[in-house]
């Protein structure tokens, strides 16, 4: 069985990876949606709507590829379970 210390390591890793994903998503959606001329300080209506949709689509793609990757990489999934079970 996993000790408390091991469970906490896995939990910390999940937070770290969520935060890495969030940083990448923000960068990607900024690049897709925000004009770089900066003529005004407000988000335009178009930019705001684009950001909303970009976040939704990013999370969808991230999740879909995660499922695909988990199905494929049995080895890595086994490694994952190995960690989780101890």
């Amino acid at each position, binding site marked *: 069985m996993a000790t408390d210390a091991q469970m906490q390591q896995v939990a910390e890793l999940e937070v770290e990876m969520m935060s890495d994903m969030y940083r990448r*998503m923000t960068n990607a959606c900024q690049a897709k949606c*925000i004009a770089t001329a900066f*003529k005004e*300080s407000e*988000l335009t209506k178009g930019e705001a709507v684009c950001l909303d949709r970009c*976040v939704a689509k990013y999370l969808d793609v991230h999740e879909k590829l995660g499922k695909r990757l988990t199905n494929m990489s049995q080895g890595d999934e086994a490694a994952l379970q190995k960690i989780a079970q101890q």
Partner: protein
Amino acid sequence: MASEQNIQTFRDFLTQYNLVAEQCFTSCVNEFGSRTVNAKEESCANNCLDKFLKMTQRVSQRFQEHQLLNAQANGAAM
């Protein structure tokens, strides 16, 4: 107490500051005929900072809503 948590929050704040300054410089300063920032560049950089903060706030809200919906769908109070 200057806890680990506080230090990490401060580090995140400073990293964001460095990031936005780099991005706004790169987007707004393209003229190197002098060593002083001109009015147009400064206005651009200020707008860039303001917009960056509004962007990160909006992305954060949408992300939290998504997390909340996921947690509800899983029947958990995560």
